[in-house]
């Protein structure tokens, strides 16, 4: 056995398994995206079995892009949800990471409390937030709103200050089950879950910051903001880029939260739209899938480049 044979042999199972896992389903998606293929069609029963004789060329792509009304909405909504989550998690994550980077009493416990949301399974996250926290009547939101309204109503009868509160309006709770508001609900719950991830990454990176440089800056009279702006922020550029890209890839395939929060109310992203198409029009579902792959790849290429650089160090 030559020196090269054993290492190759050890890598073979993993490589073959991943090849099968990637190529076969993706190849089928590509094939289905070029043929007419529906699950139910009484008038054209021949379309219900995948076959090359139902070749449609780019017809499915054309249909998805220009015929189906939901595609562009789903793309815009995906981009809106993903970018909102990214902005919120990065800003919150930076602030919290800087805040807990110094030592203070109970820092260990604070870290443990902060990281916990990240380990909550997505299904529980969504059910918990939409029902018990955001529900306009029975959730905490509903309880808080009715509590405030009752308090204000009580104060209206109070002597001296009563007139002031009689001018206050009744607060209306927000329903998070409409098309647009349920997108906000998804953004809130995913931000809650992924801010801890950003904090963790930024904190790890902050700990490798050059302390001598920082002390020198302090001796030179640099204030807290100047230190952050000119030392910490440039140091964090790379972790920020990585957090942005990893989240983009994960959240572009966000599914459980959308399914639980907004089933049937019109709020959809690309994976959800694919699921809807897949209940009958497999050709359209596959073409949409290929678009989703392209969208994810645009982000992935940047991430892979960045990761690749640090790979062999």
């Amino acid at each position: 056995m030559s020196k090269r044979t054993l290492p190759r042999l050890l890598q073979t199972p993993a490589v073959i398994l991943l090849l099968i896992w990637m190529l076969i389903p993706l190849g089928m998606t590509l094939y289905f995206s070029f043929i007419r293929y529906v699950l139910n069609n009484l008038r054209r029963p021949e379309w219900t079995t995948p076959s090359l004789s139902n070749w449609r060329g780019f017809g499915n792509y054309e249909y998805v892009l220009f015929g189906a009304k939901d595609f562009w909405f789903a793309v815009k909504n995906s981009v809106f949800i993903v970018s909102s989550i990214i902005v919120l998690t990065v800003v919150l994550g930076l602030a919290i990471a800087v805040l807990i980077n110094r030592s203070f009493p109970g820092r260990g416990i604070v870290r443990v409390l902060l990281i916990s949301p990240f380990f909550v399974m997505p299904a529980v996250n969504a059910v918990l937030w939409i029902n018990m926290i955001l529900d306009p009547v029975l959730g905490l939101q509903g309880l808080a709103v009715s509590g405030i309204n009752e308090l204000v109503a009580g104060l209206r009868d109070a002597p001296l200050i009563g007139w002031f509160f009689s001018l206050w309006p009744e607060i209306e709770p927000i329903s998070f089950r409409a098309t647009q508001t349920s997108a906000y609900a998804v953004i809130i719950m995913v931000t809650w879950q992924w801010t801890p991830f950003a904090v963790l990454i930024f904190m790890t990176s902050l700990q490798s910051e050059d302390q001598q440089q920082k002390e020198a800056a302090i001796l030179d009279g640099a204030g807290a903001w100047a230190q952050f702006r000119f030392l910490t922020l440039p140091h964090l550029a790379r972790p920020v880029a990585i957090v942005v890209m990893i989240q983009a890839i994960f959240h572009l395939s966000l599914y459980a939260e959308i399914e639980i929060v907004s089933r049937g109310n019109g709020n959809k992203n690309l994976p959800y739209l694919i699921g809807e198409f897949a209940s009958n029009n497999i050709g359209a579902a596959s073409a949409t899938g290929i678009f989703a792959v392209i969208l994810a790849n645009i982000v992935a290429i940047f991430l892979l480049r960045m990761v690749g650089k640090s790979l062999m160090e």
Partner: protein
Amino acid sequence: MAIVAQQTKFSKIFWPVLAWFIALIFFFPIFWMVLTSFKTDADAVKPEFLFTFKPTLENYLNMTANYDYWRFATNSVITSVFATGFALAVGVPCAYAMAFNPSRATKDVLMWMLSTKMLPAAAVLYPMTFLTKNFLGVFDTKFLVIVVLSLINLPIVIWMLFTYFKEIPKEIIEAGKMDGVSTWGEIKDILLPLAWGGLASTALLTFIFCWNEAYWTVRLTTTEAATLSKLIEGNRAPEGLFFGRLSAVSAAAVGPIIVLGWFCQKQLVQGLTFGAVK
């Protein structure tokens, strides 16, 4: 230290208090879920029982009757454990070979493996359903869930193990070879003791990812192999009537994982950033 001396009395009190406040806000939904799980369904939606209520274990005791919890939990445990085991069994030899006998292609192979992780699952939803239902006949079996879970985590497993193995000095292995240690002995007596920590935390993290997975476990199962994700997803809208019992089953589904998660924070950074953040 200069930094400490610079702190005023105000910042010494204000910033830690703020940090505690934020941490409590972030933890509050979990706390709220656990608190609600000890209320009856009727108490759970009454504002006057926000914090003062008569705690009950009823919701936990009735989890089997209400949700058939243990069947789903057993499926979650079985699929996550075997998927983790399978991913490690395939991943360890691969990462070992890549770290200790790298070739010119190693970097590209690693990058390619990572790129498979970035394919959106939804894109291959129908082919997977078609293949497993009509072709292989494994739809809604634990076998299928195990295979899928281990394959979606395999790139991360290999990647994490690779970064761990790379840290082990090659000289130690070389010295072992000089002394005539066999390949098996090299792995058992030299490598394993050194890599033990890395292996354990990789396994732990993979287990957590498997447990929380919520796309394939929902789409490729119906009843037989359904996991806890599927159970919770199926009770997405309890109409406010069952907050108590739903909280109990949710807390039971995520509690153990949160505790496990506390122990592998550092590995999480490594595993999710592919070693790019140190």
